[in-house]
């Protein structure tokens, strides 16, 4: 060294400029719960049952239970099998999870009697590959699926309809929207519903709002399901959220009483983010949420840290914990909509690596959801993947021969779907006497990428229209009638078929989705029967042929041309 002044090497400068170094990383602080899943402050597993009642749970006597302990003890744990299940060594349960010779049902017979600390003890033994093996078998629905977001930075309903149509065509089984200006909700929710049915009949839609309005849109049949019903792992944070396990359980039944599919939402990191983790690890608290959801009798859960992903993402082993929380939801027999739904990293490598534990084994919904609009238009504050990543996603599915729920669609089909969605919405708005959609807007929707590519709407007129939807009591049935009488028969019929499902209740069962021919597909009639190599869901046949297609594939017959 002859230089007089220390300076960074050229390589260090290069590394410093890599996107991953824009991400935030912090040290663990287990005393405060800033730790993923390995903490000395988490309780040791224990259970005691007397007279058919749990009287001790993870080292705590019933008199000292907080309300999470109480709810889990009263509703989630199967008292008949609990003591026997708890006596099984954790290592043996972990082995059952990955052993193809042990069926999903045999695992469930054990997990239904486990306490939160015991579940943690089991998954702590598993590395990410074992977690994926477990997920492959424990996922409730045999066929994996995906969910998309269709939102607009300007809350433009035409954009939401066109992007929902394209997203549905590309393969999302569920589509979710939310708003910048909440009062826009009725128009945007209608647009989402119409666009989704144009793209692929039977796609289910939801609009994330505060509880009361979300339920009302559902009751009216303007949306088909709900998922933004948040729960938390400590009593104090749960109360800060102005709810209890009992209020949320009541709400779960309220949705079912109207025939509406619903799942709860939780995730690692939310409690420490809100400053009240009570010194417990993120995963331990999330397992409490999962068992609370189980006890409430909801069919499923959206988890995988969700909006707090920056917290587990910043601590050692955090993404392993996130993979583990998805597995725990599946191993207690809940539908799992597995995150990958919020901006996570500046690094594309890290974004992709974070996805692997869900994409490779498959989950009920790999993303919850994938941004089917450019991230700048994503009103959930950005997703881990957006429209720019469509071709990468399709290529990864083809490379690894895994089904992430999407497919490549040729341009003419996409343009047609977008155009039809915009025209159907145009006709429906006119029929319902809502603010007009111009031909110029329909044209823009056909070819647009982002909200910047559309003419500006008269926002005040739209908001008045949105209010009138609520005041006039417009329901899903009015949408069906409007679409039918304006000549959009297929869209009308699809929407009617989706609405009819609430009369049958079939979509209330675990992991239910609707196929394009309106067959409900759930964990009852599409049981995950994975039993080792060559069994379970395999990407093969027609679906595999579909996923072999990409934007540019050189023809083997005539290498001077491309197929696709």
């Amino acid at each position: 060294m002859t230089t007089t002044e220390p300076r960074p090497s050229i390589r260090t400068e290069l590394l410093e400029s890599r996107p991953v170094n824009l991400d935030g990383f912090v040290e663990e602080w287990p005393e405060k719960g800033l730790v993923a899943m390995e903490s000395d402050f988490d309780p040791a597993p224990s259970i005691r049952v007397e007279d058919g009642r749990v009287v001790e749970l993870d080292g705590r006597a019933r008199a000292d239970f907080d309300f999470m302990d109480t709810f889990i003890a009263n509703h989630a744990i199967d008292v008949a099998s609990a003591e026997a299940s708890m006596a099984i060594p954790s290592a043996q349960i972990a082995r059952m999870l990955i052993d193809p010779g042990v069926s999903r049902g045999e695992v469930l017979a054990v997990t239904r009697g486990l306490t939160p600390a015991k579940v943690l003890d089991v998954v702590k033994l598993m590395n990410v590959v074992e977690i994926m093996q477990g997920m492959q078998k424990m996922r409730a629905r045999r066929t994996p699926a995906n969910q998309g977001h269709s939102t607009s930075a300007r809350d433009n309903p035409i954009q939401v309809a066109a992007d929902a149509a394209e997203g549905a065509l590309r393969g999302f089984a569920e589509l979710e929207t939310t708003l910048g200006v909440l009062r826009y909700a009725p128009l945007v929710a209608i647009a989402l519903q119409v666009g989704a049915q144009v793209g692929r009949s039977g796609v289910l839609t939801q609009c994330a709002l505060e509880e009361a309005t979300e339920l009302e849109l559902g009751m009216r049949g303007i949306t088909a399901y709900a998922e933004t019903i948040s729960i938390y792992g400590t009593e104090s944070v749960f109360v800060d959220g102005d709810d209890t396990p009992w209020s949320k359980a009541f709400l779960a039944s309220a949705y079912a009483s109207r025939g509406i599919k619903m799942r709860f939402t939780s995730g690692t990191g939310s409690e420490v983010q809100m400053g009240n983790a009570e010194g417990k690890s993120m995963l331990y608290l999330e397992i409490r949420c999962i068992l609370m959801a189980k006890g409430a009798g909801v069919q499923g859960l959206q988890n995988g840290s969700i909006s707090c992903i920056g917290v587990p993402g910043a601590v050692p082993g955090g993404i392993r914990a996130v993979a583990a929380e998805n597995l725990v939801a599946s191993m207690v027999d809940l539908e799992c909509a597995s995150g990958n739904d919020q901006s996570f990293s500046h690094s594309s490598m890290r974004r992709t690596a974070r996805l692997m534990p869900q994409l490779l084994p498959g989950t009920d919904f790999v993303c919850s959801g994938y941004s089917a609009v450019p991230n700048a238009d994503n009103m959930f504050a950005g997703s881990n993947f957006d429209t720019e990543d469509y071709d990468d996603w399709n290529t990864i599915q083809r490379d690894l021969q895994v089904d992430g729920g999407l497919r490549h669609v040729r341009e003419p089909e996409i343009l047609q779907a977008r155009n039809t969605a915009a025209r159907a919405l145009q006709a429906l708005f006119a029929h319902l006497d809502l603010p007009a959609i111009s031909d110029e807007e329909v044209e823009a929707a056909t070819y647009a990428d982002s909200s910047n590519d559309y003419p500006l709407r008269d926002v005040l007129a739209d908001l008045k229209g949105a209010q009138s939807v609520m005041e006039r009591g417009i329901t899903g049935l009015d949408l069906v009638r409007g679409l039918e009488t304006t000549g959009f028969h297929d869209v009308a019929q699809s929407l009617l078929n989706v609405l009819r499902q609430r009369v049958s209740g079939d979509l209330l069962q675990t992991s239910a989705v609707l196929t394009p021919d309106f067959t409900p597909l759930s964990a009852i009639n599409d049981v995950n029967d994975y039993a080792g190599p060559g069994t379970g869901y395999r990407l093969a046949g027609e679906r595999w042929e579909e996923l072999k297609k990409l934007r540019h594939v050189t023809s083997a017959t005539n290498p001077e041309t491309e197929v696709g």
Partner: protein
Amino acid sequence: MTAATTASDRTVTLREVGPAGRGTRPDEVVVAVSPAFAGHFTKTIVDVPHVEVLRQVLAGIEEQGVTARIIRVFDTADLAAIAHGGAKLSGSGIAVGMLSRGTTMIHQKDLPRLSNLELFPQSPLLDAPVFRMIGSNAAQYAKGESPQPVPTRNDQMARPRWQAKAALLHLKEFECIQAGRPAVEVEPVFGRVGSRPLA
């Protein structure tokens, strides 16, 4: 980043001058800061020095011809409680509440605690010009005017970069809470680091 004297050379300490009382001047804005502000912590989540934060907020208030009074809260690190508590002590009923990491709120004494006039929840996006505008807007509310809200920014990549650090800072600020200790009025003492020459 330049060689010239910068904001980072300046320092501030908050000298206690007595219990925080109710103000009588209708033309004052209270600036209420959290337990660790300009004490245990010296800068926001994105390294804006607290001295700069205070200078800008105070300048924004003063440029509207309104006076500012600073109080420090000890018994809570909840921004709404800090800002609303400050508003109740303010002669005009208007206060700016601030957490160490930079999260800021303009509050008014007659509003419910969980409401506010303006909230700036994304601490990583708050820089000196924004703090000045916040001060200016607070002063305008104090004069009974209805200023345009300070434009809020949004950055989708703030989560991966700052969410965990924000949680950590939140936990640390909580540790500085002194339960039951009443708020005090403080006086900012501005200085410069070491022997660097004054600009």
